[in-house]
Structures are given as C-alpha cells and as structure tokens.
C-alpha cells in the first residue's frame, strides 16, 4: 500500500447529473479528489491533461460512449492507467462482458449504493497491475 497521503483522483464520467451527484455525495469526505465528465470525449481530454487514478465510466453517453472511451483510453494510455470501473444499468449487463474484454477493471450496476461504490473503487485501486 502507498504510504503517501495524496488523495485518489477519481473522474466521474456519466451524462446523468443524478449519477454524478450521487457518486460525489458517496465519495466526498473520503480520500478522493473528484472531477466530472459528461461524456467520453471530455473524459479523454481530462485524462490527457492529468491521468486519473480511477474512472467511473457510464456506458450510454452522447458524443462518446463508454465502450468508445474504453478502447480509446486503453489505446492511448495503456492497459494499467487509468483504472476503469464501468457503470451500467441492469438492462446493460450484456455489455459487461464486452467492457471487461475491452480492458475495464470492474463493473458496477445501477442502482448502486455507497458501500458498493467504495468497495468497487478500492478493489481496482488495490489490484496489482495487469501483466
């Protein structure tokens, strides 16, 4: 475990203001530095400026959707950075396999609650780099 006290930089990527608001509420007060992106394009630009430790990634978004961001990010930044947790509704479970195959580190299903979100994010952050 890192001994630094540097907060975890987490990019909340979702076109739903409600989801971003809920995730922000859950993570605020913990050791997270939070930023928002309303679609994959904005998230990609933010990653290029400063690499997040972890991206919470919605699947259905305008301009650039989750799978497009996932592929672009893995192509540009490699397999290990940023950690990516795909966030989709139950009707999107068919996409989960595709997301995991395209380099997602984990997934979370909407509706999620605070303990589940915390567990998923710390899970991917603690995982060793893939080989």
């Amino acid at each position: 475990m890192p001994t630094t006290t540097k907060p975890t930089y987490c990019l909340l990527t979702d076109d739903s203001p409600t989801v971003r608001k809920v995730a922000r509420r859950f993570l605020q007060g913990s050791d997270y530095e939070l930023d928002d992106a309303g679609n994959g394009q904005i998230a990609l630009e933010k990653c290029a400026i400063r690499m997040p430790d972890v991206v919470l990634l919605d699947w259905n978004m305008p301009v650039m959707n989750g799978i497009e961001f996932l592929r672009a990010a893995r192509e540009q930044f490699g397999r290990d950075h940023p950690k990516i947790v795909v966030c989709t509704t139950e009707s999107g479970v068919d996409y989960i396999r595709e997301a995991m195959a395209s380099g997602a580190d984990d997934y979370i299903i909407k509706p999620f609650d605070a303990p589940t979100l915390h567990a998923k994010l710390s899970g991917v952050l603690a995982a060793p780099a893939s080989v």
Partner: protein
Amino acid sequence: MYLAAPLQAKCSSEAAMASISRYEIMPTPDNYTLWYEYHAGHHAGLRRTMDVLISNGDGFEEATLHDLTSTFISSAKEAEVIREASRSIQEALRSLIEVAHRAGAEADDFGIALTNLAARNYGDNKESLREMVDQLIRESRKMAGKSQSASAEMKDRSTEIEILERNLAQALADARTDSLTGTANRKAFDATIRKLAGDAMNSGDDLALLMVDADRFKHVNDTWGHQVGDEVLRHIAATLKHSVRGQDFVARYGGEEFAVLLPFTDSKSAISVAENVRHALIREPLRLALTPPMGPLTVSIGVACYEPGDPLAEWIGRADAALYQAKGEGRDCVRCA
C-alpha cells in the same frame, strides 16, 4: 458402380487433358473425347491402335485423329449430334451446379455428382450420352427429393422450436407470477425494483413504492378459513390492477402484503394512487355470503419515494414503516414516509 464411375471419369478426363497437352494436340471436343476414351479403356480396338501410334512416336496428325474418331467413336454425323447434345447437357450441368452451390451444404453431394458428370461432357457415343442423361436425371431427382425432405425437416424443426419457445415463455411467465392472485410474484418484484431504480438513478426521474396490506387478515383466515382468505387476496389483487395506471407494477410481496412500483411518480401523486386503491375497495366491496357476515374489506398503505443511491432494502423499509404507521393510526388509510 455409380460411386466409382465419377471418380474414374475424373481420372480419365485428367489423363485426357494431360495427353492432349503432351502430344500438342488441338484441344477440340472430338480429340478430347478420343483421348478420354483411350484412358478410360472402354474400346479395346482404340486402345491397341493408339498404343501402337504412341510407341512409334509418330505423333498425332489431325487426319489421324479424325480417322480414329470416325473409326472407333462415331460417324462424323453422329459426332456432330452428340457434340450438340453434350453442349446442352453441359449448359444444364453448369446451371444445376450453380443451383447446387446456392442451395448450400445440403447440395454438396449433388454438386460433386454434377461436377463429375461435367468432366465427361463430350459423350463418345449415343450409349454414353444416354447414360449421362440418365445419370443427370437420377441425380436431379435425388436432389429434388433431398431438398423436399430438407424443407420438410426444416419445417419440423421450426415447429419444434416454436413449441419450445412457447413453453419457455410460459415457464418464464409462470416463474414470475403468483399463482394465487395472478400478479407478479416476489421474484419478479425484486428484479423489477432493481431495474426501475437503476433507470430512476440514471434519469433522475421520480419513482415511488406503495406497500399495501389487507386489514385484519389474520381474523379473516381464523374466522372463515383459508379459502375465504384466498378470495380476499384475489379481490385485492384485482382491485390493485384496476386502480393503478398502465406504467405501474403490482406484485404480491408476501402473505397479505402487495407492493406497487410507480415510475415517474412523486410522493403527492403516489398518495393519490394509493387513495384510489382504497376508495376502489370501498366502491367495489368483496361480496361473499358468509356466516357471520364479513365487515368491509379494507387495506392500509405505506408510501415511500426512491432516493437515488439509497439501498433498496432501506427504501422498502421506509414504505413498510409508513404502512405500520397507517395500521397504528386506525387502518384503512394511507401514510407517506
């Protein structure tokens, strides 16, 4: 016999082509037929004569070949007729091969048979031509029979699949239906509440939940028996289904408790849906001839709205708490968390 024939025909035709090339012979239909028949070995006289010519190393003049054809294969006139017939047959073969290819894997055997027939395209005499035509007809009939049985088989299969699909759909519906009341069961409710809450979290739209419980249900069961208790549950289920809106989802949650999920509905509207249910029960009471007579059937209802991010169990718990408040405040009423 017919199994071996096409293969032999293929060998003979390949050997004929090789010989035509080796001896620099004009690749005319007659010459091809001549060399085909030589390699096939059908004519002992032709075979002997040509073996002599080959061993002499004299080569094969155009005139020599023509003589051989006239002598051993056919008269020129006959040859002309045969050539014409062969051309037509080859046309037919080509189109049949195309058909066979389009028909796909089922037609593979037919395609091979046709291809082998095509290798014998220039019949050497009337007998051989007749044989070829006969074989073509046989193969075509075989193929026609095959495609008929194939389509019958496909029809059987699709009927089978349709029945399986119907049974599966029915089994899935059964698995999600409460057999007593015909509403969705608890399992279906658990799946639906997750889905609707996910959608509500995504969209930010309202989502409300009613917990509806029959008043004094234990008393009904104890006094008039379980069959009357079942009638009460069926009546409540029917009333719920009639008094909620199309988008709403009614389920038997357990025992005498029903749950209703109300998408795009805030607490105020949810309360008015709950009041509709309560009034509908008063308007259309359950009429049963019982001794002693049963008093009016009423329900208590708890309402709670989903807060995105709330654990679902917590939300259901709030609706339940509102329901117990309604019970505590005299029953036959609606309370909102």
